[in-house]
C-alpha cells in the first residue's frame, strides 16, 4: 500500500470508515511524513502528537473521522494560542476553541499541525514569518504564497491531504496557485469567526486547501457544517474578465486561456464580461486590510514583541498610520461599486474567471514578478487579481490549470455569487475532468523523491 498521505482526503476518510485504514496508523504516518519531508519547504510550525492522539481517541463519527488536518496559525486551539506568523498575535487571543477547531472536531477530524504563514497575514508571498520563509514544494527556493503559504505547501507536499487557510486579500488563493493546489475562500461569514485572529475583519474568511475540488468540497462541508451539493457544471455560463489579462506573464496567460478552452469543450458557455470599478481595487484592499486590524491590535502586546517583528512588518505598520482617513472612507464607495458590478456580471453568467496570480511564484530571495509593464513586488501585482472577492465578500477559488516551462504551477481564479460556493467547486471539477486530472494529480519533485 502507498503512504496514506498519498491518498486523497476523501479516500483517507472512506478508508478509515471502512476499517481498511487504521486511524492511529494514519496519524503516526502523517507525523512521520511531516518530520521527514517538511524541511525544505518549512510549511509546518507545530505538530501535536499527544493532542492529536487525544482528539482521535475522542473523535465522533463524522465525515472526516480520524483524518488529520493542518490549520493556519490564525486559529485558537484548546492547547495553543494562534501567533499569526509572529511571536504572538496582536489581538490577545489565547488558547481556546475557535469555530474552525469546533467544526473540525465535530466532523471527527484530528488537528495534527499548525502551518506557517506570512507575518500577521500581511503578504501574498509567505517569505516573511517568525518561523522563516515558506517555499513551494515545486521549487522550495520560490515562494509558497501568502498568507496561508504553509497550508498550501503542506498539502502540495502531501504532508496532509487537507488544510485550513484564511483569505483576507487573496491569502488562500495565492498560495493555492503558487503550490498547485485547490483553495477556496468561502463567502464571508459562512464560518463563525470566534477564535480567528482576524475575525474582526470585513474581508477575511476561512476555507479549505486541498489537492482537488472533491477534497475541498469535503473539507468545506465540515467547515460550514452542511452539505455542499454537487451539480453538473457543463451547462453553466463562464464569464471571462479579459481586462485581467492586460498585464500578465505570457505563460500564465496561455495556461489560463487553455483552461478556459477546456471548460468550453467541457460544455460551458464562455463569454467575455466587463467589471466596472476595478481601478481602485488594489489600493482599497491594501488600505482596508491594514487599517481594519489597527483598532484590534493591543499596543502593549506590540511593544513587547516589536524587536522580534520583521523590519518590513514594523515599517509597514507605521506606514499605514500615515494613510489619510478620507482614503479609507473612499474605499467604502469602491466596495459598493465593485459589489454592484459583481451582481450585474453574475446575473449574466454563473462564474467569472481570470488568472489567479499574474505571474508564477517568485524567488524567496527577491519576491518580485516580471510582467509586461515591468518588475513589480508580487504583493502589488497579486492583490489586483485577488482583492475584489474580499472587498465584495463573494466566494472565490484558485484551481490548478497548468505549469510553466520551469514546472511552476499556474492557477485559474474562479469567482461566484455570494450564495454559490458550490458552483466554484463544480467548475473546478469540470476543469479536472477536462484536463484528465493532469494538474491536480501531479506531484512536486519533493513528493516524488521521498515517496519512493
Amino acid at each position: 500500500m502507498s503512504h496514506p498521505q498519498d491518498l486523497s482526503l476523501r479516500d483517507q476518510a472512506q478508508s478509515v470508515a471502512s476499517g481498511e485504514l487504521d486511524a492511529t496508523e494514519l496519524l503516526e504516518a502523517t507525523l512521520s511524513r511531516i518530520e521527514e519531508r517538511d524541511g525544505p519547504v518549512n510549511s509546518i510550525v507545530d505538530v501535536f502528537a499527544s493532542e492529536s492522539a487525544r482528539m482521535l481517541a475522542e473523535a465522533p463519527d463524522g465525515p472526516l473521522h480520524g483524518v488529520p488536518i493542518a490549520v493556519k496559525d490564525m486559529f485558537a486551539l484548546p492547547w495553543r494560542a494562534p501567533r499569526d506568523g509572529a511571536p504572538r498575535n496582536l489581538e490577545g487571543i489565547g488558547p481556546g476553541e475557535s469555530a474552525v477547531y469546533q467544526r473540525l472536531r465535530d466532523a471527527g477530524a484530528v488537528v495534527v499541525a499548525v502551518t506557517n504563514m506570512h507575518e500577521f497575514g500581511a503578504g501574498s508571498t509567505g517569505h516573511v514569518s517568525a518561523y522563516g520563509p515558506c517555499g513551494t514544494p515545486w521549487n522550495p527556493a520560490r515562494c509558497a504564497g501568502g498568507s496561508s503559504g504553509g497550508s498550501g505547501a503542506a498539502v502540495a507536499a502531501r504532508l496532509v491531504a487537507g488544510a485550513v487557510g484564511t483569505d483576507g486579500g487573496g491569502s488562500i488563493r495565492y498560495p493555492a496557485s503558487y503550490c498547485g493546489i485547490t483553495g477556496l475562500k468561502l463567502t464571508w461569514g459562512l464560518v463563525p469567526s470566534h477564535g480567528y485572529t482576524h475575525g474582526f475583519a470585513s474581508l477575511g474568511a476561512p476555507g479549505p486547501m486541498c489537492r482537488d475540488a472533491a477534497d475541498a468540497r469535503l473539507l468545506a462541508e465540515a467547515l460550514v457544517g452542511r452539505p455542499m451539493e454537487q451539480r453538473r457544471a457543463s451547462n453553466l455560463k463562464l464569464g471571462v474578465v479579459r481586462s485581467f489579462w492586460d498585464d500578465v506573464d505570457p505563460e500564465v496567460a496561455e495556461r489560463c486561456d487553455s483552461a478556459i478552452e477546456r471548460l468550453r469543450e467541457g460544455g460551458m458557455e464562455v463569454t467575455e464580461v466587463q467589471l466596472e470599478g476595478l481601478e481602485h481595487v488594489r489600493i482599497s484592499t491594501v488600505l482596508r486590510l491594514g487599517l481594519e486590524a489597527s483598532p484590534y491590535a493591543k499596543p502593549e502586546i506590540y511593544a513587547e514583541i516589536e524587536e522580534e517583528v520583521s523590519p518590513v512588518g514594523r515599517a509597514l505598520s507605521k506606514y499605514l498610520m500615515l494613510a489619510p482617513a478620507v482614503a479609507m472612507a473612499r474605499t467604502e464607495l469602491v466596495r459598493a461599486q465593485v459589489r454592484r458590478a459583481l451582481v450585474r456580471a453574475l446575473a449574466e453568467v454563473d462564474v467569472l474567471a481570470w488568472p489567479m496570480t499574474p505571474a508564477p511564484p517568485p524567488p524567496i530571495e527577491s519576491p518580485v514578478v516580471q510582467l509586461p509593464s515591468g518588475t513589480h513586488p508580487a504583493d502589488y501585482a497579486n492583490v489586483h487579481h485577488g482583492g475584489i472577492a474580499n472587498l465584495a465578500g463573494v466566494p472565490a477559488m484558485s484551481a490548478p490549470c497548468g505549469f510553466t516551462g520551469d514546472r511552476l504551477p499556474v492557477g485559474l481564479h474562479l469567482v461566484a455569487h455570494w450564495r454559490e460556493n458550490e458552483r466554484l467547486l463544480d467548475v473546478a471539477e469540470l476543469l479536472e475532468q477536462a484536463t484528465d486530472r493532469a494538474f491536480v494529480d501531479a506531484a512536486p519533485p519533493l513528493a516524488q523523491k521521498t515517496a519512493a
Partner: protein
Amino acid sequence: MDPEGFQAYARAALERMGVEVDEVDLAVMSVAEGVYGPGRDALLAADLSEVPREHDFDPSRAPSDVGGPG
C-alpha cells in the same frame, strides 16, 4: 511627493503621533510609498460622487440596491 519630502513628512507625522522611526523604517516606507502612493493618490482624486453608499452593507450577501451608477 519626492522620496526626500516623503521621508521628512513621514518622520514628522509619526513623531507627532509619538511613534519612533529609524532609517530602516523610512527606507521601507519610501519603497511602500513608491508602490502604493500613486494608487492612493488616484483614489483620493477619483470622482466617486455618483457612487451611492451601500446603506445595508453586509459582506455575507449581495447588495440589495444594484440600480443606479456604480
